[in-house]
């Protein structure tokens, strides 16, 4: 009896083992399929094709731009949400979380209605400044920021709330002004979360598809980022779609490596 129980701690009983194994297979098999069926012989040729190169360049540029915008706008919002005792803070937090759970295509529609040429804000952008966001590269950035910035805000806000202000209080009694407290105490202490949030945001922006294609369209060299190129490739040259998918998979693996201390350590908390 005791031996059976001792063995049970290493080998799970079958009601656990069977579904668990199925889950692993289910998650792993598609990746295996991608690697097995990839046209390795054409890899370089496809990667260096004008379509791929322009999609890659566009993805990197827009991804970097949206990450930068998310940092500039999102970190102050995270700080404000973490520190102010304002009413409606939970409402604000819910608002920030919406893009996380909203289907991206719905986000794209919403962006069109707000920033399209007939949109709530977009009509004035067009009438007064002649600016049109949809179907433009800046439109891609807008879509990515909308979808990805919440990752940064949520991550940084959590870290700031964990800091609970006691060290900042100590710093202020030592004569440090608010900006100095933020730069020398707050920021270094939330740096790990800030980096994690930034990587996460960049990865999400890079993978953005639904909101982008809805709001910015699929114009090669202008709005056709890597995920959109994959989608287009499926209809024309499937090999291209697979190669570009491999590229995006590689980026995901890199992100995982960058965040390994945060996510892959057993029992680690965020």
């Amino acid at each position: 009896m005791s031996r059976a129980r001792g063995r049970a701690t290493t080998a799970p009983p079958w009601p656990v083992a069977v579904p668990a194994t199925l889950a692993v297979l289910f998650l792993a098999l598609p990746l295996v399929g991608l690697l097995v069926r990839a046209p390795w012989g054409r890899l370089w040729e496809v990667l260096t094709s004008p379509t791929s190169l322009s999609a890659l360049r566009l993805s990197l540029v827009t991804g970097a731009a949206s990450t930068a915008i998310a940092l500039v706008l999102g970190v102050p919002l995270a700080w404000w949400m973490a520190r102010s005792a304002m009413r409606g803070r939970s409402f604000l937090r819910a608002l920030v979380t919406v893009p996380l759970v909203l289907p991206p295509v719905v986000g794209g529609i919403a962006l069109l209605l707000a920033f399209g040429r007939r949109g709530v804000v977009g009509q004035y952008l067009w009438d007064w400044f002649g600016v049109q966001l949809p179907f433009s590269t800046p439109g891609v950035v807008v879509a990515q920021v909308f979808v990805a910035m919440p990752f940064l805000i949520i991550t940084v806000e959590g870290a700031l709330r964990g800091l609970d202000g006691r060290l900042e209080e100590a710093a202020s009694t030592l004569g440090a002004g608010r900006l100095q407290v933020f730069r020398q105490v707050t920021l270094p202490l939330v740096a790990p979360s800030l980096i994690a949030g930034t990587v996460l945001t960049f990865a999400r922006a890079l993978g953005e598809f639904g909101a982008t294609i809805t709001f910015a369209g699929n114009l090669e060299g202008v709005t056709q980022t890597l995920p959109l190129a994959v989608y287009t490739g499926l209809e024309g040259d499937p090999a291209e779609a697979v190669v570009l998918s491999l590229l995006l998979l590689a980026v995901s693996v890199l992100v995982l490596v960058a965040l390994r201390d945060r996510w892959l350590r057993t029992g680690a908390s965020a």
Partner: protein
Amino acid sequence: MSGLHGRAVVERGAFVLDVEIAVDPGEVVAVLGPNGAGKSTLLRAACGLTPLTGGRLELDGRIVDDPEADVLVPATDRHVGVVFQDYRLFPHMSVVDNIAFGPRSTGAGRGEARRRAAEWVARLGLDGLGDRRPSTLSGGQAQRVALGRALAADPALLLLDEPLAALDAETRLDVRSGLREHLRSFAGPTLLVTHDPLDAVVLADRVVVLEDGRITQQGDPWDVARRPATRYVARLLGLTLLGGQASDGEVALDGGGVLHVPSEEIADGDVLVAVRPSAVSLHAERPEGSARNVWNGVVDGVEPIGDRVRVAVRGAPTVMVDVTPGAVADLQLAQGREVWLSVKATELEVYPA
């Protein structure tokens, strides 16, 4: 007027802190009180982290908080050094950088700040620890770093919030005597908050007892320890405090019973009698002897304290008595045991209520 002066009123819901406070340069004042008495609120008000809702505080002749006149000097500009109970050292900085933070913030250059920090490292006996992170320090070391960080900023007022509470009993002794030296050499006013009467007696020139937002007693620490005005302080010190009416060298106690006291010491009227547990003797039979106060009672509880045993005896009056473990065995002291008590009149501390 230099030093800290004024009246601090902080209302927060049903709780009201309302105290007159005065700390002169070079003076160390201990605020002694139970949890929730408003000690930390007073400290936070003094350093500008909690604004007053009434009264007015002056530091070195400058009004730093006056809600009526809408004056509030924020913590950043108040030059008040604080040693927090949990120290609040910056975990991402070395010991030297922690101590240099104050001088840096108040305008010293990087080199100058580090030089001053290094001085404090040496002065506080932290040699060799300058490059360490706070998480690698012992409790006593962290306490000294926190003190150095507060003092290196050259504060106009030093505040210490339960400076020894986070330490274990053994290190507390060492750190307390070290702290005493450093407080002596600080020229400005010092306000320290504690719930340990020993801190007050060892570290402070004057003690202020704070209970439920009000000052209930203040004065020389030894006087307060000898003649506590409230049950809270008496209990902290292990004394039994009895109230009563004095007349002709006798005190008729409020809770029943009469004690003979040294008649020359006290005028008639309301008085308090402090009874030290070690001044009372226990006996199995009614004692014959010189003690003028003899009464009987029933043992209510027996509890070892260090090398003594503290016995609560219910009677008129009910008192605490310290005896040796041997006496516990000899007298078969246990709950419900009937005993006789005696105490000499000269052993009683009697003073006006």
